[in-house]
């Protein structure tokens, strides 16, 4: 499996100790330095990953197969696949999965499209170039807890800024929208927060890729008389396809684990129910509730595994899909 060449003789750069005499202290030190110090340098990562990354992951599988309750340490023993089979009949899990995908779609698609447009604007020759880019990162550095609380006030039913702004263009003036009353509206509110947070970040990723497109590609395209919009779709997007796929995978992994926004959008955040009827409870939130509110760690572990598998499948599907869409326009 290892493709490394055989380790060179450790003492090539120093005169070898004269045969017959035992190695000096300095030679031993040098030998140790060349042979083992590299491993010592990378050891912290592997140790830490072993204890707090790999082991919990494997152990999570064990926990999922056992009865493991925080409130009842006496109740132990193997549960078999009970925790997993329960997932298929659990209405809460189905609902959380439905919400997670709904919010995911409402946030990812507009997020990446807008990021693409903003990146293409940032890609022009601009005055104060750096500051436009730094400005795009304001949401990225803002704690999600802080921004979600601000958006909570925006999305109040009465006297909230979102309804006021919609009222200006004649929407909901009779019946202000209750953003926490049903699925679609709460999903839109949460998706807005996610979009706000990540558009600028993704725009910078796209911008970086756009700047590495060779200039003569555009020169050639001028002959077709393509306008800026067509240029964006016909040249730029296919050329930055690897980064587009990368952002799709990133937002899939992040979006399907959405936690902070739905948690704090709830006025009774600590309950982790995602609305009085679970209107916007995501899977990550449900895992938290099952594990630390209902104190059933075994079932929460099984849910984590299910979520992991779902993320894998969706990320793979999205990669294929994006590859098709962004490449098919060549």
């Amino acid at each position, binding site marked *: 499996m*290892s493709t*490394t*060449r055989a380790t060179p003789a450790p003492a090539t*750069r120093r005169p070898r100790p004269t045969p017959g005499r035992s190695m000096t202290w300095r030679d031993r030190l*040098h030998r140790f330095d*060349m042979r083992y*110090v*590299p491993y010592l*340098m*990378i050891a*912290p*990562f592997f140790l830490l990953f072993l204890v*707090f*990354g790999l082991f*919990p*992951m494997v152990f*999570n599988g064990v*926990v999922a197969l056992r009865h493991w309750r925080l409130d009842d340490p006496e109740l132990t023993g193997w549960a078999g696949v009970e925790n997993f089979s329960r997932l298929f009949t659990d209405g809460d899990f189905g609902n959380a999965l439905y919400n997670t995908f709904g919010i995911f779609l409402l946030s990812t698609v507009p997020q990446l499209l807008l990021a693409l447009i*903003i990146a293409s*604007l940032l*890609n*022009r020759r*601009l*005055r104060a170039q750096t500051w436009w880019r*730094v*400005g*795009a*990162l*304001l*949401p990225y*550095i*803002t*704690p999600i*807890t*802080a*921004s979600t609380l*601000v958006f909570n*006030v925006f999305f109040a039913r009465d*006297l909230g800024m979102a309804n*006021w702004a919609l009222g200006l263009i004649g929407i909901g003036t009779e019946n202000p929208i209750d953003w926490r009353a049903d699925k679609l509206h709460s999903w839109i509110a949460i998706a807005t927060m996610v979009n*706000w947070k990540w558009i*600028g970040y993704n725009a910078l*990723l796209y*911008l*970086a890729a*756009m700047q590495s497109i060779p200039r003569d590609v*555009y020169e050639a*395209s001028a002959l077709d008389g393509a306008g*800026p919009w067509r240029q964006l779709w016909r040249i730029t997007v296919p050329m930055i396809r690897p980064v587009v796929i*990368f952002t799709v995978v990133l937002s899939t*992994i992040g979006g399907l684990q959405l*936690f*902070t926004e739905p948690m*704090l959008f709830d006025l*009774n955040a600590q309950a982790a129910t995602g609305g009085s009827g679970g209107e916007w409870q995501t899977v*990550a939130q449900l895992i*938290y509730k099952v594990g*630390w509110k209902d104190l059933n760690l075994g079932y929460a572990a099984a849910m*984590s595994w299910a*979520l992991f598998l779902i993320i894998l499948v969706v990320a793979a599907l999205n990669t294929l899909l994006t590859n098709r869409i962004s490449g098919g326009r060549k």
Partner: protein
Amino acid sequence: MSLLERPRPAPSAPRGGRRRAVLLGRAPQDTPAGLWTYLFLALSTLFAAFPLYWMFVISTSTDEATSQLPPVVVPGDQFLVNLDEVFSLQDVYFAASLVNSVIVSTAVTASVLFFCSLAGFAFAKLRFRGSRALMLFVILTLTVPNQLGVVALYIVMGKLGWNGTLLAVIVPGLVTAFGVFYMRQFIVNTVPDELVESARVDGATTMRVYWNIVLPAVRPALAVLGLLTFVATWNDFQWPLITLNGTDYPTSMVAISDLASGNYVIYRRVLAGAFVATIPLLIMLVIGGRQIVRGIMEGAVKS
């Protein structure tokens, strides 16, 4: 620079269709932005900045400001009053939570910089058996969603007796796969092999080469990685909530979520707390904005 080498449209180029074609042939980055571009970018920046600005406005205002329409956009004079209320809340430990966040973020950042540059150096410049396979492994761990292990991590921390202490949020973050990967890429490209070799010939030990040659050369990358790590650690919410919630040692993110839970939430107070917890990050963006932008953009091209 490369602008100079580009053929300019001849001054005598005919107007109309031909001229348009020449303009379009320019790469976007050579095309000066027009009025609409600036307008749209200004609007987007406003959209990005407004929630932050409004958080500040509300944290300086009285209760009525929260529900005033059209929205209040001028800061009030109640900032110190609101601040005082946040800090004197009994069971939220807001002041302590800020200290905790500083401790956690600083410790994690310092450690990530040290251990990741060390490992990055080893992977970039040292020969040892299995180095490629091990590096591949590091990259693979980047793709694992962290959510998967949370339940078991909590149990592990319980066995160690660390739940509810800052150790539980510090230790797992001390070295990151992203940091190792990022430092390796930077060192491969910026530290010449000959420099390392010649120091070796002069009898320098590996650690000495790291300290005297590698560290000074990778300062720009350390700045980028440090800023990104600090921001991410400061803002982390889910794991700190799980392990620290309800204890006497919350981080500021956990404390803010505590402020915002309850039957009656006083937003000028909550947002004053949220704003205070955002200030360190705003300062970082103002001072290190360039570096953060560069770090994100470099990461994109390399991955």
